[in-house]
């Protein structure tokens, strides 16, 4: 593996890592900061991908689809929080596992009834549909570079929001001790609804942005679900910085694992997770 | 030095920059109540955690009944006869008073968990354990609420259950962290009588703010301020000690 190849693989691992962060961003909010074990995170991701497919099919523009899709998923998040999740903040993790596992079944069937079981592809917007030549045989798709930028911006934005803004302070206070925060005048009910809706919207946004790369197919959500939990848990529950670091780490292990240790590739990520949890039981960046 | 049931030498505990307990040495002798008083944040509770093994000391030695027990985890210390109660009531709320006591009483000679005997024998059909629980219950006067679930007891009675559970493990040394906290006058009175009765056969460390109880019970008094011991001795001497007055008891004492 010469230097050129190594640097490209490094770029691949960073790109996949940032992609994983985008995937797990919604989960860092709902599971990380609000402490709700949300197994339906994969379903929101799948929902985003199918919305992107439906809207780009109807209007032909991914940008428009993303805007409409995000608005729709915020509404869905708000609704779900009001009807269901509001009653589960103080329930045990077990009840949350059960609730969200039931939702997986429901979302999977609704997707099948609404959009069928076909495999679809979503077009990359024309202005991004080109590649940069890296070597005489390999070039790098511009859309992935665009995603690189988007994910980094999102990582920075989310980190700033959570740790630097007033809202972020309220969110962290609410997560740390919701009764105390309430006593301090934070409208906890509205805050939870907002954070939950943001979490669902982020998961759907990931689906919409990754759809052109991943194509849209049944059960795509359940394939990413476990990886999202791995990222959030390794990073340290509730830490945005942790999720980003963990995502990059998993991207590294997965990319180079496939190339150097193909026969153990699938187990490597879980070995990494087990090691981190045993060495630092609360994850890398526990608050 | 040898007949001290519990002896601590140079115990310190540092939380990052804060030195919560600074080089404290003290000994507990049988049939003696050693009270520790001091303003809030003086490190009294941290000291009990260091003695009981709830917290690992940054430095210092610990001897129990003459044997070095430095660094032992607290379940081993407990088995060696070092029982402790907690400042914040720490009992099994869903269980009845009797079940709380049985669980405590059973710890002493429980089979190891991987020993099949501990899977098949009946927990409530062990005469020794039941006797131990019965004794602790009568001592603490909880017979009336024996089959009530701990959750619905009044705060005072829960504190009594806390003490009874410690007694049920039949310890040699008792570390009591503010047993009278949140108790009404009547309940406090019964508790003081109970502690008075317990003085025999046990070495007792009493962390308490209720000065009447302290001066009624204590044989030795230690005053801690900001993690360090500023005075130790018989209660009467401590009362007059100028330094203590300045640091803790405030202006002229009555």
């Amino acid at each position, binding site marked *: 593996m010469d230097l050129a190849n190594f640097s490209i693989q490094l770029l691949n691992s960073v790109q996949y890592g940032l992609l994983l962060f985008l995937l797990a961003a919604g989960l860092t909010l709902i599971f990380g900061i609000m402490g709700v074990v949300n197994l339906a995170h994969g379903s929101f991701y799948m929902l985003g991908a199918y919305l992107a497919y439906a809207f780009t099919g109807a209007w032909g523009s991914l940008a428009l689809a993303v805007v409409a899709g995000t608005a729709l998923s915020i509404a869905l998040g708000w609704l779900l929080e009001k009807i269901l999740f509001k009653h589960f903040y103080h329930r045990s993790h077990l009840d949350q596992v059960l609730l969200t596992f039931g939702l997986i079944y*429901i979302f*999977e069937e609704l997707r099948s009834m609404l959009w069928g079981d076909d495999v679809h592809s979503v077009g990359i917007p024309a202005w991004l549909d080109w590649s940069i030549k890296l070597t005489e045989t390999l070039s790098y798709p511009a859309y992935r570079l665009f995603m690189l930028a988007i994910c980094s911006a999102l990582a920075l934005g989310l980190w700033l929001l959570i740790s630097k803004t007033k809202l972020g302070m309220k969110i962290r206070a609410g997560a740390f001790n919701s009764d105390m925060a309430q006593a301090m005048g934070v409208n906890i009910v509205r805050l939870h609804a907002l954070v939950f809706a943001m979490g669902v919207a982020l998961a759907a946004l990931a689906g919409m942005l990754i759809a052109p790369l991943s194509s849209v197919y049944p059960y795509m959500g359940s394939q990413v679900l476990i990886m999202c939990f791995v990222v959030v848990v390794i990073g340290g529950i509730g830490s945005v910085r942790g999720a980003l670091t963990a995502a990059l780490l998993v991207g590294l292990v997965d990319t180079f694992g496939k190339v150097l240790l193909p026969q153990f590739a*699938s187990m490597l990520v879980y070995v990494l*997770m087990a090691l981190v949890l045993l060495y630092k*039981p609360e994850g890398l960046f526990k608050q | 030095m040898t007949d001290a049931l519990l002896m601590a030498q140079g115990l310190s505990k540092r939380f990052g920059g804060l030195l919560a307990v600074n080089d404290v040495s003290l000994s507990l002798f049988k049939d003696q109540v050693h009270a520790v008083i001091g303003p809030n944040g003086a490190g009294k509770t941290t000291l009990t955690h260091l003695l*009981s093994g709830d917290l690992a000391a940054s430095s210092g030695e610990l001897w129990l009944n003459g044997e070095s027990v430095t660094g032992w985890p607290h379940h081993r210390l*407990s088995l060696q006869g070092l029982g402790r109660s907690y400042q914040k009531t720490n009992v099994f709320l869903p269980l009845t008073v009797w079940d709380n006591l049985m*669980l405590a009483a059973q710890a002493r000679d429980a089979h190891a968990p991987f020993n099949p005997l501990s899977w098949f024998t009946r927990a409530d059909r062990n005469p020794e354990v039941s006797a131990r629980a019965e004794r602790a219950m009568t001592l603490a006067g909880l017979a009336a609420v024996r*089959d009530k679930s701990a959750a619905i007891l009044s705060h005072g009675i829960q504190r009594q259950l806390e003490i009874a559970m410690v007694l049920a493990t039949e310890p040699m040394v008792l570390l009591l962290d503010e047993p009278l906290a949140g108790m009404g006058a009547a309940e406090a009175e019964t508790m003081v009588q109970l502690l008075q009765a317990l003085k025999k056969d046990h070495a007792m460390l009493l962390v308490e703010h209720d000065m009447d109880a302290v001066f009624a019970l204590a044989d030795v008094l230690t005053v801690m301020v900001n993690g360090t011991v500023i005075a130790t001795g018989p209660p009467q001497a401590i009362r007059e000690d100028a330094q203590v007055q300045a640091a803790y008891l405030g202006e002229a004492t009555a």
Partner: protein
Amino acid sequence: MSAPQAHLETLPRSVQLLLVLGLIALVAFPFAGQDFYTQMVTRMMILAIFAMSLDLLQGITGLVSLGHAAYFGLAGYVLAFMSPADAGANILTTLPLAVLASALVALVIGFFVVRTQGIYFIMVTMAFAQMLYYLFFDNKGLGGSDGIYINVRPAVLGMDLENKLVLYYFTLVCMLLVYWFLRRLLWSPFGRTLNGIRLNEHRTQALGYASFNYKLTAFTLAGGLAGLAGYLWGAQTGYVNPELMGFHMSAHAIMMVILGGMGNVAGALIGAFGFELFLHLFKDLPKVGGFDMGKHWQLWMGALIVLVVIIAPQGLMGLLRSRKQDD
């Protein structure tokens, strides 16, 4: 010594009645039911053993494992590896070995896993189970992604599990033994301590219990019992595959235990039968005016699960007891 008051260990009479009725039905069932239903009920009993083994962890000790299927599937594979191509393996040697293998793996994994707490315990148990799943999924030597056949089902001393009836009653006896063992465990010093650990681990340690050893023993025991269920599953289907250790099967076990109600072993048993019955009921729903209800069984299953977690947080058992408040 007075019997303790309303307690997890003593089941309300209504549940005891249900269990006795159920037992009578189970004993008589093969003579009334078709061959297929005998096999279906055998599978329900196997899943009941699996659910009860998880209840020892989840309901009694308070440890939520999202990777319990690893030990279930592993024992099935041990049977497959030890089954000769053309003859049935000997139950007397293979069953204990399979259970021991699962218990041993549970001990090793448990040693690492049990030191973590709360949500991290859930996640790390899942991580280890996924490791085991991919170990078998990726290695052709271990059967690969399509799994392995058990050509002839195990037998011993004239008791041949090829015969569906023998397998049925063998499984029934195993289920009753596991139920009896775990119910007795609730009353044992070990069980009482596990209960203490679930309620307040810190206080339990302060009383003198090494809670790590207790939790590790419970994890190992639960692994071994799950192994028993996995062995029986392999013996019944004659085919083991990596999905038996997969995330889906672990989640299935959690749902059975929660549906039934946790902490008293009977809940897990009722939950296993209830969950399978609902699954079959929804799948066999007829076409109603052009809308094939059965095809959308996932929708009804999802709705049922959400409903249960909202109205019956303590599961079916909770419903039976919620009317009769404690004193």
